[in-house]
């Protein structure tokens, strides 16, 4: 187990280093270079040279990378052109809010997907199963922004149950103090996430139901409830740990659109605004952080998997 943990951790560190190289390289593929992006199309060559000189952009690429890495290690992700604020302070302010949104949606969708998936597996190929599969396919195929607008139309506009806009505020405390505004963004994101989780849960449960120990349990005369809860569910849940890890980038992606639809003041909205104003340091900083979060999420999921399933540890 320890060896497995060490190996996976080292692998993750290498991937994080790789992500930093990509983020660094992305800086260099901006057409016209960083100086042109910041100083605008009217900047003279002299100004561009001065900018490059000042920011070390005229040094060899590998030295620039080490400088970049040095800055990263010291928590310096550069400065947002548009907000005129260090990227780290933008992230510090908005990342917790995004994690709140993405995390609650993830938990909500898991709690709905598990029972629905189990019921679908037990009633496999019956009407209820078809309805469930149909619903997840439909939700999966629906562009997130449209789903969000429909949720707003029904629950905010027609039924007037919840506000259509996410709570505004710079700290997570301010966001949490207006919980009713959080409902619709979380529900929208959870619906989208649920679409892929339920299909997984269903096939995972079907596979678990086909195992020999289920037949043994039935032969022992255990009640259906005991079989489902004690023998099937625990085994069917193992792949879900990995699934949650693998789905983190996807949830961040859907989260970005959800934040945009509901004007939720998180990193996703920052990213969108930064893209519109071509604020490259902020874009790259967010890409880096979200990717590192994904790598760590995958690592945690793999560890959970290894804890739950001993076969992995000794493989």
């Amino acid at each position, binding site marked *: 187990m320890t060896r497995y943990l060490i190996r996976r951790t080292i692998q993750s560190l290498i991937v994080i280093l790789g992500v930093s190289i990509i983020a660094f390289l992305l800086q260099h593929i901006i057409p016209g270079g960083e100086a042109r992006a910041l100083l605008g199309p009217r900047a003279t060559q002299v100004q561009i040279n001065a900018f490059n000189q000042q920011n070390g952009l005229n040094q060899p690429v590998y030295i620039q990378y080490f400088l970049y890495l040095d800055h990263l290690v010291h928590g310096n992700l550069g400065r947002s052109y548009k907000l005129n604020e260090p990227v780290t302070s933008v992230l510090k302010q908005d990342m917790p809010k995004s994690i709140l949104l993405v995390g609650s949606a993830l938990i909500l969708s898991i709690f709905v997907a598990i029972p629905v998936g189990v019921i679908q597996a037990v009633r496999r190929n019956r009407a209820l199963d078809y309805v469930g599969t149909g619903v997840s396919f439909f939700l999966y195929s629906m562009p997130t922004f449209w789903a969000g607008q429909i949720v707003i139309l029904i629950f905010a506009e027609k039924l007037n149950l919840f506000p259509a806009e996410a709570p505004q505020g710079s700290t997570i405390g301010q966001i949490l103090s207006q919980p009713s505004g959080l409902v619709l963004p979380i529900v929208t994101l959870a619906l989208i996430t649920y679409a892929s989780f339920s299909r997984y849960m269903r096939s995972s449960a079907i596979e678990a139901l086909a195992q020999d120990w289920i037949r043994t349990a039935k032969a022992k005369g255990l009640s259906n409830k005991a079989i489902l809860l004690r023998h099937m569910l625990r085994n069917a849940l193992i792949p879900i740990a990995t699934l949650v890890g693998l789905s983190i980038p996807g949830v961040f992606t859907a989260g970005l659109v959800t934040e945009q639809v509901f004007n939720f003041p998180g990193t996703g909205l920052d990213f969108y605004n930064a893209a519109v104003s071509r604020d490259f340091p902020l874009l790259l900083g967010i890409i880096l952080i979200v*990717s590192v979060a994904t790598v760590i999420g995958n690592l945690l999921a793999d560890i959970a998997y290894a804890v739950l399933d001993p076969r992995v540890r000794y493989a």
Partner: protein
Amino acid sequence: MTRAEDQLTPFEDEIVSPTGPEGGEARESESALQLILRTFLENKLAILGLGLVVAMAIFCFIGPLLYHTNQVATTYQINLPPGKGHPLGTDENGRDVLGRLMVGGQSSLEIGIAVAIIATVFGVLWGAIAGYIGGKLDSVMMRIVDVFLSIPSLFLLIFLAAAFTPNMTILILILSFISWLSPSRLVRGEALSLRVREYVKAVKIMGGGPTRIVVRHIIPNTIGTIAVNATFQIADAILVLATLSYLGLGLPPPAASWGEMLSNGVNYIYDGYWWLIYPAGFAIIITVIAFNFIGDALRDSLEVRLQKR
């Protein structure tokens, strides 16, 4: 998570897929192909999916030949409800929605299919080379894939779309740039198990070089996995394109795509202009579901072939 990534099993490194198809130079024997085809055609959802895709293609590509509209010029007849002359009404620029649905479908389908082809070709080559050669090169190539898989795709896409002003070609390229990862991983997994098969050894002994082995033997034997993945890629690309259009990073106007139509239409959701929303929205949903049905059925029928061997 996208459908194309679905196929990636956890612990790719630990588990080497044991069920690669067998066979020498990949020329499917008549019966295997027939079996796949038969199982595929017995699947009602597959037929439905195939039918929907064909119908959609006819609608988008043949439709404009019969139903002429001007999708460039704007008129003052804006947001007209469906009625005489405009079976699906007009949009906020006074263009006919039915005609726009056809033209928009063309670009959505073209981009989806082009992305699937480019991403699949590149990903398959990458994965087959890494898996066949193995060792250090394999580790390096696969860590590169891991790195790109860790970057949430939409973030990378938005960055690229902000850096390069999108047109059709650039959109296809940047969508392919994020889509080649899952085929490369899948094919690499299969190549690992295929390269130790007897027939590959036999080719080696007969003096076949690595290029021949990879192109003539490894890749053709992974064709099932590749085909299934490519179908999901088309669906995923159409969806992502819609999201990009909504974020204002899609095709520049006056070009039409379903995503652009839907995201414009959504602005009028409170005005009750349903004809600006549902036609484009359902075109996306139907096409995406249809490609998913085809992919699922294709996977099932390939599995049946393996079971009956």
